[in-house]
């Protein structure tokens, strides 16, 4: 990733979003969140606080959970981005999405995409997390429908289903 110095104009960047290669013309300091929502129409990532406190804009960048509101889009050049839209395989929901539905882990839905991506990041590192580990893994994602217990239960349920297919 490098660009010429002294340019305030748009630059072309290439990246992969949900498995599809994209080339975009962007201002380097645009937020990844805005590019996903406005340029690519991927509105699953939400803007909650806009300052990295709430986690509702969470996406995976090269497998790492990030708050997309804090990522200048230039820093995502060359990376592999996964949003909530990229999680399901065709018409089949991802195990986490299904578990959130079954356990009542989603209510108003604002926090849900971020919660599920944070949970997916957690399960890729710890396939069978304890309840304490789930709470730590989701601690950067706020829910204001007070649904934390169901959310933690949904993640535990998804882990169980994945372990016993």
């Amino acid at each position, binding site marked *: *990733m*490098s*660009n*010429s*110095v*002294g*340019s*305030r104009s748009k630059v072309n960047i290439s990246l992969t979003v949900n498995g599809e290669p994209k080339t975009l013309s962007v*201002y*380097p*300091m*645009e*937020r990844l969140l805005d590019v996903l929502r406005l340029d690519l129409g991927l509105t699953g990532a939400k803007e909650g606080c*806009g*300052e*990295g*406190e709430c*986690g509702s804009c*969470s996406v995976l960048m090269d497998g*790492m*959970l*990030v*708050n997309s*509101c*804090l*990522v*200048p889009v*230039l*820093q995502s050049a060359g990376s592999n981005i996964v949003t909530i839209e990229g999680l399901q395989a065709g018409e089949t929901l991802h195990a986490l999405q299904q578990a959130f539905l079954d356990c009542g882990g989603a209510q108003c839905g604002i926090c849900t995409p971020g919660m599920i991506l*944070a949970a997916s*990041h*957690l399960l890729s590192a710890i396939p069978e997390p304890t309840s304490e580990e789930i709470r*730590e*893994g*989701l*601690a*950067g*994602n*706020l829910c204001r429908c007070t649904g934390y217990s169901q959310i933690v239960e949904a993640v535990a349920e998804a882990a169980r289903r994945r372990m016993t297919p």
Partner: protein
Amino acid sequence: MRSNPSDYELAAPGNLQAIVSLIGSEPGKWLPIAGGTDVMVQYAAGKLPALKLLNIWNLPELRRIEVSADEIRIGAGSTYTDLRKNSIVENEFPLLASAARWTGGIANQNRGTIGGNIVNASPAADSLPALLVYDADLILVSVRGERRVTYASFHTGYKKTLLAQDELVKAVCLPRRFSEYFAYARKVGARKAQAIAKVCIAAAGRVVNGSAEDVRIALGSVAPVPLRLTGTEKTVNGKIISADLLRLARQTAAADIRPIDDIRSTARYRTAVAGNLVVEFLTRLNAEQASGDFREAKDVLTKWNALSRDEAIKTILPCCGSRAWAHGMASHRPLTDEAALLAASSDVWRSLTTSDWVEAFQSHPRIGESRAEQPPPAQSVEWSTQEQRAIADADAAVKKALADANREYERRFNRIFIVCAGGKSAGEILEILQRRLNNNADTELQEAAEQQRQITELRLRKWLQG
């Protein structure tokens, strides 16, 4: 008011040398951005004055952790997640590992960097007290070359640092000499994750021969900069951790800090919590040491119980200085634990004659001097020096007053003044001495004997540590 991205430049030269020369070509004009966890917050709020940003995220030269025999060198671009995953940090620098775990949530740990935390210079930053405790150095780089500065000197005021306008923090160096220290960290905030601390502490220390040694205490959110509590450390080092010392440490901590009222807390609350944290640290330090010492104490007593009678007397004599006491202790063998040893010591001591007591008194150097009436064993001399350390450090006027009062005491009672000096300041000892000058002969003999009994207890505890 949101920022307009078309107003901002973001240069990405892609390697450290090019970045450093760009900053050097226009000092103060370029703002480096790594994980964006601070810069992007200001940007989104329309409060970012710098219109020229410089991308340093994921730069290989800044994002590596190098380990040598003496130190660990953490690239400034290392994230909190990088720190959490590093086994040397986890095992040898647990205060930094805890701070990394407590910073933000996982997404911010994946992006926030140690260098960013340092340069952002928030007095509430989680990782900064740990760097103070561990005597960190910083490597700063510019077109002029590299320089190494102590981290303790880096913050010069609220959000002010030593960093020159053309400089970048390249690495943080931690000496690998704290792995045996007891470490204590705690963050007091509204919530476990994603909360900025009302007060946070990082502290480490050791207990050697029963006394606190090289205690290091640093707090966040209690002053314009992350703060080392040097006054409190001085108060505690070299002392036995007692209830009196904890009280004193709490007072000194309150004097060391400069907290304010703000949106997160009040100065009054912060002062109370800072005192609680310091006291909790010292209490745990003491307890931790005691449990480690338990096995050693068993070993010492097992060996002593097996000695010949003469050897057993000779070995325990430095703890008290009275031969009759040492004989009595040898007769009480076998003694299997600390409680039995201390109980036997008190019983034997109280059963002795006045001349036995005086023999023990005379084995001590006059307080404030180093030579005893009778030449004592080397171990006794070493212990006396430790016990009277506060007096050696006292100022000349107090020392002179002590010497005068000592002579007065000897004229009046015909023997040297005995006080259990461990943990007391020279001023406190002087006060006690002046009060006891008013005692009648009998009261004073009992008081001196009680002081000697306490000295013997402290020495027996040290003796048990081998």
